[in-house]
């Protein structure tokens, strides 16, 4: 049977809708709606989560992530500058550090800092320091690479103009290159903040007091207490409160820098 292109496309679309309708009908008939509703949308279980899920867990997730990101940014900047240094050993050290922390699971870093260091060195950090250092170590490796790329994306003419005005190499770096590099890497940097937000959930495996619970741990405890998946779903929604706006921000910034660069090219071309 010969079909025109339009007929074939229509048939193909019809089959797709058919499969979809069948799947929906099957799920509707066979699924145990009572159990599902009880597991995910248990209002009594949900009620026990408030207000701590916001006032403690969400706030703590933001604090842990914020501290880790701040440290990661500072460390990442130092590493990026080391990687661009004309001194060989600096470059090698930075490369080893970056490759190591990008290559090992973040979980391992948390175990090392949360359990390993206290055992081996008899050192006890409070939970905020442990979180900041672990997330900072992991984040800095990624941030360093992003920053290095950003610094290299600033046209060399910018440094030449700065130097020709009598600025020193480091002055030109600080006042001219780094601010422009940050504009270029704002979108990928926002993405790294999203990844770090999710990585902050690894803190849950350290011993936490109730006031130190972050979202994942809080959800886990809620599950234990209620036997319902609802607390986990709520914790997930709370992560989305952080990550979705950041994702939109990242894409918005990306569009904006893209447009700026187009304009820049038009003028200099």
């Amino acid at each position, binding site marked *: 049977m010969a079909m025109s292109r339009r007929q074939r496309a229509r048939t193909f679309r019809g089959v797709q809708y058919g499969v979809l309708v069948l799947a929906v009908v099957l799920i509707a008939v066979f699924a145990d709606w009572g159990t599902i509703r009880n597991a995910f949308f248990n209002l009594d279980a949900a009620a026990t989560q408030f207000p701590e899920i916001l006032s403690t867990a969400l706030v703590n997730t933001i604090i842990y992530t914020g501290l880790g990101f701040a440290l990661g940014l500072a460390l990442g900047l130092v590493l990026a500058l080391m990687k661009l240094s004309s001194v060989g050993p600096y470059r090698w050290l930075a490369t080893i550090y970056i490759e190591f922390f990008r290559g090992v699971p973040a979980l391992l870093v948390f175990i090392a800092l949360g359990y390993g260091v206290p055992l081996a060195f008899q050192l006890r950090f409070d939970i905020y320091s442990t979180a900041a250092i672990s997330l900072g170590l992991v984040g800095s490796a990624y941030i360093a690479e992003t920053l290095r790329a950003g610094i290299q994306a600033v*046209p060399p*003419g*910018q440094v*030449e*103009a*700065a*130097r*020709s*005005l*009598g*600025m*020193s190499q480091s*002055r030109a770096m600080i*006042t*001219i290159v780094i*601010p*422009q590099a940050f*504009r270029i890497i704002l979108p990928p940097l926002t993405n790294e903040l999203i990844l770090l937000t999710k990585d902050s959930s690894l803190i849950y495996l350290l011993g936490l007091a109730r006031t130190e619970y972050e979202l994942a741990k809080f959800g886990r405890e809620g599950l234990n207490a209620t036997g319902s998946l609802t607390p986990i779903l709520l914790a997930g929604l709370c992560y989305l409160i952080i990550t979705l706006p950041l994702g939109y921000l990242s894409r918005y910034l990306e569009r904006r820098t893209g447009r*700026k660069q187009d*304009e*820049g090219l038009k*003028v*200099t071309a």
Partner: protein
Amino acid sequence: MSDVIIEVSGLHKAFGNLEVLKGIDMSVKRGEVVCIIGPSGSGKSTLLRCVNLLEEPNAGTVLVNDFEMTDPDVDIDKARRGIGMVFQGFNLFGHLSVLDNLTIAQRKVLKRDAEEAKSVAKENLRRVGLEEKINSMPSQLSGGQQQRVAIARALSMQPAVMLFDEPTSALDPELVGDVLGVMRTLANEGMTMLVVTHEMQFAREVADKVLFMDGGVVVEEGPPAQVIGDPQHERTQTFLRRVLNPVHAHD
């Protein structure tokens, strides 16, 4: 203070195996406008960039404004304060407004206070005819306007000499005149200028001295009437025939 402000002698520069400058001797006197002309790849930009040490020469000496630029112990940042440079691609700082482009080095390098830096900036924007653009961002300006801002930025450091590397060759033809006009005014005000250019009309009318470079050497130099009007060397004649009469470029 000596009469000679730039003194280049025995200058050699190579990029890897490529020898770009093969022994350049030249000088610029205070108040003089010197234009460098020559075919693409002859080393004009490299020579200019060796003058403020954006490129490091392999041999020879460069003296500017009583600083020996080629001395490894020279305070290069201090030496460069007295040398303004204008680039083919403008190189305005893209994250800063026009005003900040003009004040940033004044403040960070010369340690001027905000008030003084701003008034110097305004004065120099007036000189290039762009006072009303003081709060614009570089991306909002045309190429010609960007280049005039770049000139004002260099002037804001009150340099003793200005270097120009083909300041109009990235511009649309209708914008070239504005930039050349600003440069002409500067020259009339007595600014010492070393200009790499393909604008023969400008060189003929404004320059006190013209250098023709080819293959990494200065082939011919003298007043414009001589070098452009009545060239003695065959290479100069060929180059000028091509530039002045591009239709008959096939010889």
